[in-house]
């Protein structure tokens, strides 16, 4: 599962930063049928979380109402230099993760 993360490379301590993530995933709803009429099993990313230096700063429970290749954006406060690490899991148990570092000054 490919993913892209975007956060500022650098920030001032206490600055509110924008965090964006885009994950490649079909987000199969479970309501569609294949060419021969069989129901396609639901397979969506059901949990997505983000840890900032080990501390969870964001969590979302996604469901079949979210489009394919989900895009999530949120804000957090830059407290210290470190890593933002995303991890997620889909209905089939496949896990993905992606991390990016930030330098905090001041």
């Amino acid at each position, binding site marked *: 599962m*490919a993913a892209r993360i*975007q956060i500022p490379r650098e920030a001032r301590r206490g600055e509110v930063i924008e965090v964006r993530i*885009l994950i*490649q995933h*079909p987000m199969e709803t479970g309501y569609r049928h294949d060419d021969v009429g069989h129901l396609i099993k639901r397979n969506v990313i059901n949990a997505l979380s983000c840890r900032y230096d080990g501390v969870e700063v964001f969590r979302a429970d996604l469901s079949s109402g979210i489009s*394919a*290749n989900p*895009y999530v954006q949120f804000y957090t406060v830059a407290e210290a230099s470190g890593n933002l690490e995303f991890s997620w899991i889909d209905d089939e148990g496949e896990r993905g993760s992606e991390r990016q570092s930030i330098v905090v000054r001041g």
Partner: protein
Amino acid sequence: MRFAGLALAAAALAAGAAHAEERAIPPGELKSGSAFLGSDLHALQNDEFANPGMLWVERGAKLWSEPAGKKNLACASCHKDASIRGVAASYPKIDKASGKLFNLEGRVNACRVDRQGAEPFRYESEDMLAITAYVARQSLGAPIVARIDGAARAHFEAGRAAYHLRRGQMNLSCAQCHDAQWGKRLLSETISQGHPNAYPAYRMEWQTMGSLERRLRACLSGIRAEMLPYGSQEYLDLELFLAWRAQGLPIETPGVRR
């Protein structure tokens, strides 16, 4: 003297009429498909991070430098990045070696088979979409240039005929919507001019990336006409005509469309 002037005027008029007949939409009125989008999709396309098509471009960038096939060559082994800038804007074009008309997919597969000794990519496979999206992205902003002289002329004429052919249960040609009715409403949608400059593109309806031919097939299905197999000659010819029709429009790949 007066007679000669009249004759000249008549000749100019005839030339003007022929020109107008040739180009249904004058260059000054050309509008990319993005001009028919809502502000949300327009913003999504222009957001280099959030544009979901960039997932394929990124994958394409990896494929570009990954050695493949019996000869263990990557695209990047032969092509330096600067040399493919603007190249996609001139497709479809005649391949000098075979004399055949190639779209970008055809070019990629010819390289894979002949130069890399690798299996060709299937149309609409993730790899094909990724590599064509990556290559087209290197031409971002480059104006489409279609050459219709020489060996391309016959393909151009066939493409023009295909574009104007009424087909399917609805008995519609491409021209009836995209030349004669663009800008008007079709149910909740605004009819676009039908230009190819954003493909491969990410379509909301598909929830994924797709090639220009997939888009052509969607139109054909919409008018209840027969869909041809991917890579068929009629599609290639039509792609050349579409490129000529869109001459000058900038490449937007990966476009975001409804």
